[in-house]
């Protein structure tokens, strides 16, 4: 059986003395969209940060195309083609909208995404390209954050709670753009608190509960009660 694109094997994560993840197993196949849901503090962000290299782990706990990358630095992971849209957007305040996007393409990887293409996807950003990035509305900042990640032409994009703090109409707008983003063979792991949205765009879903995987299933067919049980740990 060929290696999954991304595989987490018994991933443990710690913040000092506090353990946030307990033996998480997860796999992602090329071209898939995998959703990860769970309550606050379940460990979803910790998991994404671990994959992205912001948290150090055991090398073999995170495998990318069969290679252990758990101990790599974030910039090394980025060079492999894994991009993170971080929770809270975290744009660079000293950079304009356009500069935020350009720096996303810092690594110069080849691919379908370019500045023009991001502007096609999110036209409002073109209008505001020279503005200070943090002067934009929440939804627009989210667009910049997503565009920034896409500019690196990744093979895998990790999205951490992109709907957090946004008005429903904006969330809908962004999620409507998602198929256009993911369509071209880009693989995605989407962490969401909005369960309905998460299920609507993904093929498979994992649920994390207090640092452990409590559910794994097909997004379209997993029963509601199972999700509720897995989400709340009852």
């Amino acid at each position, binding site marked *: 059986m060929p290696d999954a694109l991304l595989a987490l094997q018994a991933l443990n994560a710690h913040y000092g003395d506090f353990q946030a993840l307990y033996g998480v197993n997860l796999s992602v196949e090329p071209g898939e969209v995998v959703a990860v849901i769970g309550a606050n503090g379940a460990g979803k962000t910790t998991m994404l940060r671990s994959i992205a290299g*912001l948290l150090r782990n055991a090398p073999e706990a995170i495998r990318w195309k069969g290679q252990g990358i758990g101990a790599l630095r974030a910039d090394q992971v980025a060079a492999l083609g894994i991009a993170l849209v971080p929770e809270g957007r975290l744009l*660079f305040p000293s950079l304009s909208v356009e500069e935020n996007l350009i720096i996303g393409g810092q690594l110069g990887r080849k691919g379908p995404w370019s500045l023009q293409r991001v502007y096609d996807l999110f036209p409002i950003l073109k209008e505001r390209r020279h503005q200070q990035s943090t002067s934009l509305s929440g939804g627009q900042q989210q667009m910049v954050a997503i565009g920034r990640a896409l500019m690196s032409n990744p093979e895998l994009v990790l999205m951490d709670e992109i709907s957090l703090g946004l008005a429903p109409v904006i969330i809908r707008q962004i999620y409507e753009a998602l198929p256009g983003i993911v369509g071209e063979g880009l693989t995605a792991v989407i962490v969401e608190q909005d369960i309905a949205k998460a299920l609507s765009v993904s093929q498979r879903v994992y649920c994390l509960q207090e640092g452990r995987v409590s559910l794994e299933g097909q997004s379209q067919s997993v029963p509601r009660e199972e999700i509720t049980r897995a989400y709340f740990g009852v």
Partner: protein
Amino acid sequence: MDWLNAIIQGTLLGGLYALFAAGLSLIFGVMRLVNIAHGDLIVLSAYIALSFGVSLGLNPLVALLLVVPSMALIGYALQRLILNRTMGEDLLPPLLVTFGLSVILQNVLLMGYSADPQNLQAGAIETASVNLGPVAVGVMPVLVFVTAVVVIAALQWMFYRTALGRAFRATSDRQDVAQLMGLNRAHIFGLAMALSLAVTALAGVFLGIRTAFDPAAGGARLIFGFEAVIIGGLGNLWGTLAGGVILGVAQTLGAKIDPGYQILAGHIVFLIILALRPRGLFPRIDG
């Protein structure tokens, strides 16, 4: 007329102080690091120019071609080997480590060169002067001032118009997220320090040509650079130039009143500005 002369001399002196300060300002902007050894590194540059001059028979202005890359390399190595380990939330490690470096540098220079004051001989250009209307100004001070303006303009251009500058700004904003863009933080910080010390090399050579220097001269240079930065306002390179000029003018006017008051006058003006405008005259960021 004498006062006008003093003001002009002070302004030109401000160029040298701005050069002292530019390196300090740069690394504070990128890394929030204040290098206590900065003044001693300026003095180190002067000594390196001295050694190149003695061994290769080079005019110090020509030796700059060797001193600048040497200091840049030293800066990169210093940052990556030692200072990168001090970067973090705690303010004590970088302060105490750079303080230790300052003491080590001063004493190594003392062992290597003795405490005798030294001078860099640049030849005829040192005494050449040019007439600016009613006053005569030295060519060297004008050269230094012009260099300061060019360097600051170049740094501004680099910061706001190049990929490296973008990388600096992004890393300064959010180190972690900058790593997500594929920027190696350790390398970026190394480059920033290399650039800072390249500017410091210029400052050191100009200092050595202008006055006598000895291993203990670093402290005063650090203070002048620091005063220029604070007067001008943090995070603003042009402000630093203004700060340097104000400091230079304060000192030369003070010297006019009494030669012994020169440095004290500068300190007093600094303290007054600190009292009235604690963030400086043209601040861009907060300390």
